[in-house]
């Protein structure tokens, strides 16, 4: 199994936010996590990536069968773990291109600038972004939608084994949701295990969800329900009150 989360308990700021999560994601699988605000979705993503402020109190996260909870953020990233941030930071003075080339060479030991340039240009076109963003500082002055797309572009360039996408659809216009959904499906088709955190079903129509254990509902730090696409639709129609 690519990613296996076992009985994960996590504390944030002294408060238990995740209260025993179990989740398995294989290569090329597409999973969706839904859940009300504050239920712990972003916290779960942060725990997988290893961001500070998120303390694992119990349980384990296995990647390719190996525990990663004591590994640093960059080690995990180099193993192939990627997160699309709900609110990515804006970095002054660092151009998107130099950032990407540093990331790429950190991942692969070196970066072939010519090849990278081609990949970036292709990625930008597919995402319907403007080419001048690569010269601009990372995320600086990007619109909400451009920020989401810039994160997806990074995923496409870095080709992770697992990608956790924290609300890739919020703040996007109808067309952009379709584009982002398509890119996530493409990543999954090429073997990336994807976990999509979302509040809405509209991105689901662009995702190829297979099976009946791919939509997970996180509620108060626990996964309380698993199902297929229909579970997401039910939640959208009736809200989380059905869980009480």
């Amino acid at each position, binding site marked *: 199994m690519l990613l296996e989360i076992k009985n994960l308990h996590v504390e944030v700021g002294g408060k238990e936010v995740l209260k025993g999560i179990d989740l398995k994601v294989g290569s090329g699988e597409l999973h969706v996590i839904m859940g009300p605000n504050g239920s712990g979705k972003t916290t779960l993503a942060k725990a997988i990536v290893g961001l500070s402020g998120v303390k694992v109190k119990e349980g384990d996260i296995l990647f390719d069968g190996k525990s990663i909870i004591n590994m640093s*953020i960059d080690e995990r990233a180099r193993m192939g773990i990627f997160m699309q941030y709900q609110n990515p930071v804006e970095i002054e003075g*660092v151009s998107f291109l130099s950032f990407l080339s540093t990331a790429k060479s*950190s991942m692969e030991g070196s970066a072939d600038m010519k090849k990278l340039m081609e990949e970036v240009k292709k990625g930008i076109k597919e995402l319907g972004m403007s080419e001048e963003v690569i010269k601009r500082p990372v995320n600086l002055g990007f619109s909400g939608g451009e920020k989401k797309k810039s994160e997806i572009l990074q995923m496409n360039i870095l080709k992770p084994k697992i990608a956790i996408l924290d609300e890739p659809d919020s703040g996007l216009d109808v067309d952009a949701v379709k584009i982002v959904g398509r890119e996530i499906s493409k990543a999954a088709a090429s073997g990336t295990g994807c976990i999509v955190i979302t509040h809405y079903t509209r991105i689901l129509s662009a995702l190829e969800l297979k099976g009946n254990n791919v939509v997970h509902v996180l509620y108060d730090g626990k996964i309380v329900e698993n199902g297929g696409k229909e579970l997401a639709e039910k939640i959208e129609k009736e809200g989380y009150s059905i869980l009480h």
Partner: protein
Amino acid sequence: MKYIEIIKELEKKIDSLPQESDPLYSKNIIRLDVSGSADSLKELSKIAEKIGNFDLISNGKEVENNNKRIKVYNLEDNIDYKFLTEDRNVYIAKAKLNTGKIMLISSGKKEELRLRLMLNGYNQIIILAEEGSKIAIEEFFEGEEAGIINEINAKEGSDIKIDIINEANKSLSFYTGAAGNNSRIEINSFFVGEAKSNNKIICSQNSSAHINNIIVAQSKNVDITDYIINASQNAKAFISARAIGKNATIFIKENSIIEKGANGSEANIIAKGINMGGSKIEAIPAMTTNENDVKAAHSADVAPLSNTFIEYLMSRGISPKDSRKLLLKGFVYENMNAFQSKDLLESIIDNHLGKILGD
């Protein structure tokens, strides 16, 4: 402080320069006069006569007109000085100055002069840009100690740009500039050693002054004070200082004065610092505005590197050290970009950041 007082203060400093009797002071003047235009020669001769003996290096056009005391060298005679291009109105030269030299640099009307100076010890440079001319100078401070006084005079419609890459262990520098109508003066400085620096520029009508500082200091004291005085209508002042310190004490005191009558003026000050641990960094912007119809803004901020930013970069596979380096370079990027030799400066900064981050 009124600009008159500032000028007086500066004059005092110039008066207190090493005197003829001082062994430090060899009384040599090296002069670079591109066109030998009558005006600039006259001005420079006046200053030169006040000071005493000097050697002249010129392209030789009008040297006969000069004072008898002038010793004339052909360009080729001076080892460290040569023209690199014979472009009609563009002159590029390189010179190396050791302690005690006074260099007079002037460009004739509408000419362009590019110059690279390696400076060692204590020197004085007087720069005069004739109307509509352009002077771009790179000053490299080398060695154990460096001290420099630069007097900058930009006549109407001219443009003077000075980049200072200061790698001296210890340095003292004073730059004073007067920007004539419609002219432009830009001073970019990079400091890495113990440094005390003072820039003062007075702007006339429609002129602009730009001061850019980058400080990368480890276990050093750096004390920087800059003034730009908007003395007349539509003058523009821009100051940006960025300091990175580790176990260092850094003061960046950036001042703008807008005089009465300087309506339509603009002034913008940015003073920022990143404390990489154990440092005292003070970023102090100050604005004095004696006119109503002006645009003035300033911002200051000193903080450690943001952990959120470091972690964002790490989550893309970049090591903690490279993440910090990328952020620090980003922090000084815009200021670095103002330098003519930005690639060279980047590699110098890279090297010093590496030391701060524990290479």
